[in-house]
């Protein structure tokens, strides 16, 4: 079944890593980006950390593409809003009552670089990790199975609900519902659009519940899984290493050693 996720199947070494190893790795990038405040260090973290990893994962181009899509709305808002409205004295450009200031642009660059690392690390994690394997790795460490069911089912049914919503929109339009016009008019069509979607899906819940119960969903006790996760001693060592790096970064920040 098609799921609307970022995941791209490849047979790379990055894909083959245990999901927890990749979570720990993502964690290092998150903590590093949060503790560093120098723009150039943040950009370097992206260039020598995330880009080679994306290359190793054979997802270089889709990675760059998704990052570009993710970052530009932030970059646009940040440079405009901070550039013009942050406090500063170095005026670069005067536009009527508004002035573009150097301090604001630096602030925007700083936040954009940090978000680039954050969003990039999160996107890379999702691109190279199958969601069901990610969930399985968390279940094995004690996360309730029900949480995994909720997340994976949501991912599976979202496309169907998007189709349903589009179907309802088309059906109501063909019955003469005007979807253009003034704002008040468009607000009034909310109920005829939203109510059928919610009522229809809520009333078929019983079938879903019965289907799950027929498969012993609420049974207590241990389960076996169709998917097996490959792990190794060296990966376990690596995860502890990543954890130490995170703690070291936080400690360095507290004592004021980070640039």
């Amino acid at each position: 079944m098609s799921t609307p996720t970022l995941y791209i199947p490849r047979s790379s070494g990055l894909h083959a890593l245990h999901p927890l190893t990749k979570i720990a790795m993502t964690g290092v990038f998150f903590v590093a980006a949060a503790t560093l405040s120098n723009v150039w260090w943040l950009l370097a973290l992206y260039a020598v950390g995330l880009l080679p990893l994306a290359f190793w994962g054979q997802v270089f181009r889709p990675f760059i593409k998704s990052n570009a899509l993710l970052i530009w709305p932030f970059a646009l808002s940040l440079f405009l809003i901070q550039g013009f409205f942050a406090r500063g004295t170095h005026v670069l450009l005067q536009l009527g009552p508004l002035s573009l200031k150097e301090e604001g642009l630096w602030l925007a660059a700083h936040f954009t670089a940090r978000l680039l690392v954050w969003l990039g690390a999160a996107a890379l994690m999702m691109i190279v990790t199958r969601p069901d394997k990610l969930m399985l790795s968390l279940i094995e460490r004690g996360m309730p199975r029900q949480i995994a069911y909720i997340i994976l089912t949501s991912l599976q049914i979202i496309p169907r609900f998007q189709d349903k919503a589009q179907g309802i929109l088309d059906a109501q339009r063909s019955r003469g519902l005007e979807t253009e016009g003034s704002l008040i008019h468009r607000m009034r069509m909310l109920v005829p659009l939203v109510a059928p979607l919610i009522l229809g899906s809520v009333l078929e819940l019983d079938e879903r519940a019965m289907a799950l119960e027929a498969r012993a969903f609420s049974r207590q006790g241990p389960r076996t899984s169709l998917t097996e996760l490959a792990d190794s001693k060296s990966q376990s060592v690596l995860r502890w290493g990543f954890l130490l790096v995170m703690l070291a970064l936080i400690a360095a920040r507290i004592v004021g050693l980070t640039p």
Partner: protein
Amino acid sequence: MDRIRREFTTLTLVLIPVAIAINVAVGQLVQSVKIPLYLDSIGTVLVGVLVGPWAGALTGFLANFVWTITGLFPQAVAWAGVAAIIGALAGAFRTGDWMRVWWKSIIAGLITGIIAAVLSAPIAAYVFGGVTGTGTDALVAAFRSAGLDMLGANMAQGAVSDPIDKAVTFFIIWAILQALPEHFKARFSQE
């Protein structure tokens, strides 16, 4: 503890992913017909109102993880805590019997929206540099130009967008409750 366990029946567990999918589908539908609201917590509010505060909170929390995993709105996970509180409030308002009368449901929505705005603003201000990467940033810019600082402008933007959005959300859920058969609602009720 007992109350939490009573909320999470199999029926609740199948409702939650449906509610999350409703959040996504309705959020996108509203955008496609150019209504300036989010309505992307409507499923979360539904769970809170039908089942209770704990189930509502879990729905909101996980919904934002799902937004992130799909890549549709990857920054959502930063607001997972706020989404959880919206779900919990929906449950609390139904327990307090606010969801029976239409105007009370609107007030409940307004209150929820104000709380959501106050809680969301610091996240936008301190984590994302005062922006959310969405269309409401235009409002933030307007408030900054009026002289408000980063946190103030985000607070003001939230105070404009969120209460109206949540009031409409709660009102639609009230209307849907009227349409649902009694025996169906009774299956979720905890009393």
